[in-house]
């Protein structure tokens, strides 16, 4: 019930974002049913313009671009959810360790987080992804391990605030174990956690797309970033308006996704 109430209070543009994101999720789930052709089916004539048979034409290899795009929903949405969840959990877990144990643990993790905040995240992620074996798992791991710092900083702040409250102090005094303390902290941190989860999903999509554009990552999984890269590498993209169905749709799909994710958790004040 409370969730419904919160939803009702949302400004219109946020509701709209939610609807769009739900649509993305549905497309991702039903991608195999929506796709007219298989992803690795390159038996079609190459470089066909859009038609009723090939909604967005075909690429220079003979793939159906529409199928690739729909398949990208599945890969990217799953990737966003997994990396977003893992990096938020990692950041929150480290924040809890820092806040709960304090002292050396706190200093060490905070120093590490500070490094990742002042150095360019994307270069570090790219470095790791380049030297690792090019698989989707490694891309996700690179994103997760090097993008938790902001989550950590904010959540740690919240946890420290919350720990100075009486109910938590009391639990600690009563020699409550870690789980008891956790239970008291969860309600205070939950809203921040959810916002960060959405933001981290957004970041993961941006990072993955950027990595793919730089040619890093699993060459076999056709993410949106790889589609953009393939389109931009195609030398005659700007003849005969090919870009209109090869490049523009995938760019729009990425844009709408990241913008909706960002707006959904934007703060009003």
């Amino acid at each position: 019930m409370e969730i419904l109430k919160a939803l009702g209070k949302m400004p219109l543009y946020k509701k709209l974002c939610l609807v769009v994101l739900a649509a993305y999720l549905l497309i991702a789930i039903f991608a195999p049913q929506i796709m007219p052709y298989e992803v690795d089916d390159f038996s079609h004539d190459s470089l066909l313009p859009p038609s009723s048979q090939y909604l967005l034409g075909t690429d220079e290899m003979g793939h159906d671009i529409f199928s690739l795009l729909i398949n990208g929903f599945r890969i990217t949405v799953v990737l966003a959810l997994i990396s977003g969840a893992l990096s938020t959990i990692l950041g929150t877990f480290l924040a809890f360790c820092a806040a709960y144990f304090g002292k050396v643990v706190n200093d060490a993790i905070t120093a590490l987080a500070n490094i990742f905040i002042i150095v360019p995240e994307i270069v570090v992620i790219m470095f790791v992804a380049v030297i690792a074996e090019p698989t989707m798992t490694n891309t996700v791991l690179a994103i997760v391990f090097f993008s938790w710092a902001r989550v950590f900083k904010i959540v740690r702040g919240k946890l420290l605030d919350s720990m100075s409250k009486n109910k938590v102090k009391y639990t600690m005094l009563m020699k409550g174990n870690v789980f008891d303390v956790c239970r008291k902290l969860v309600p205070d941190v939950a809203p921040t956690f959810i916002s960060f989860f959405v933001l981290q999903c957004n970041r993961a999509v941006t990072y993955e797309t950027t990595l793919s554009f730089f040619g890093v990552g699993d060459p076999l999984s056709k993410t949106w970033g790889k589609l953009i890269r393939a389109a931009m590498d195609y030398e005659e993209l700007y003849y005969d308006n090919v870009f209109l169905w090869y490049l523009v749709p995938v760019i729009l799909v990425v844009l709408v996704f990241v913008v909706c994710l960002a707006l959904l958790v934007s703060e009003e004040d």
Partner: protein
Amino acid sequence: MKNILHHLTKYLIFFFLIIAISFFLPRLIPGSPLYALTGEGSGYADEVPSAVLENFKEYYSPDKPMHEQFIQYLKNLAKLDLGTSFTYKTPVLDRIMAATKWTLRLSIPAMVSGTIIALVLGVWMGMMAKDRGKLLVPPVLAVQAVPAFILAALAQMLFAYQLGWFPATGAITPGMMPGDPGYTADLLKHMVLPYAVLTISEIPTMTIFVYNSTIKVKKEPYVAFANYLGVSKIKLYTQFIVKNILPDIVGRINIQLIMCVMGSLLVESVFSYPGVGALLRHATNYRDYPLMQGILLTSCIYGIIINLVFELFINRFIKSK
């Protein structure tokens, strides 16, 4: 004094950790060439020409024990030797230095103009009657969410390929030499699109920050009093608002300085602008590990130096004001 020492030690530790990360990661992650050379061979070595492999071995010396390798690595770094690029066959540092010139030429002006636009926009939004500026926050956030390279791709598509107003790639028309007639004009023409994209990507974060600061300052009694006294609008904005939010903003320039160089890396790679971004794209395309590592180190050190300078001098200066 004690404070300065504290900051220096902190950043020295950061610096050391970055070096350690850049050393250990390639040796620990499965699938990397160093791991392949030291650990279980996985055929990576066969793909690299033998002369390059020799250079590679000489620089990294994978057959020595780890701690000796690390000491060797530190010695090389102390001599500013970042190794030799696999593909260019020249020292990595030379390549990066040559590219940095272009990156700074692009990113520093973009940062300045982006910050100025953000300042004007943010104050204007903050000073709107009845908090109407709030309505502009979502659009600004939407622009913020757009990945820099996608913005670049869109600008290239529209203004270079469709309208043909500006050249699509490069920093200069091939064959143009310094001193030729029209050289500077050509240079500027190539700069317009990457510069504009970078400026736009610099605006949103700062705008939101300025907007929030303005809202805070607006509630101060002296602003109400100035209003009451009928101080002119321009004077109110410059003397009362901007003057009071400026310390906050200057304290944030370090973030802008790092953001603009990172944005520049992505934007350059789209426009094939010969800066560090294009170099990075080359490095990732050809798996040029020493080059990759050099770019990682230099960009991290850049971040460290910027933040150190800010903590030591600028924040101190702001506080003393």
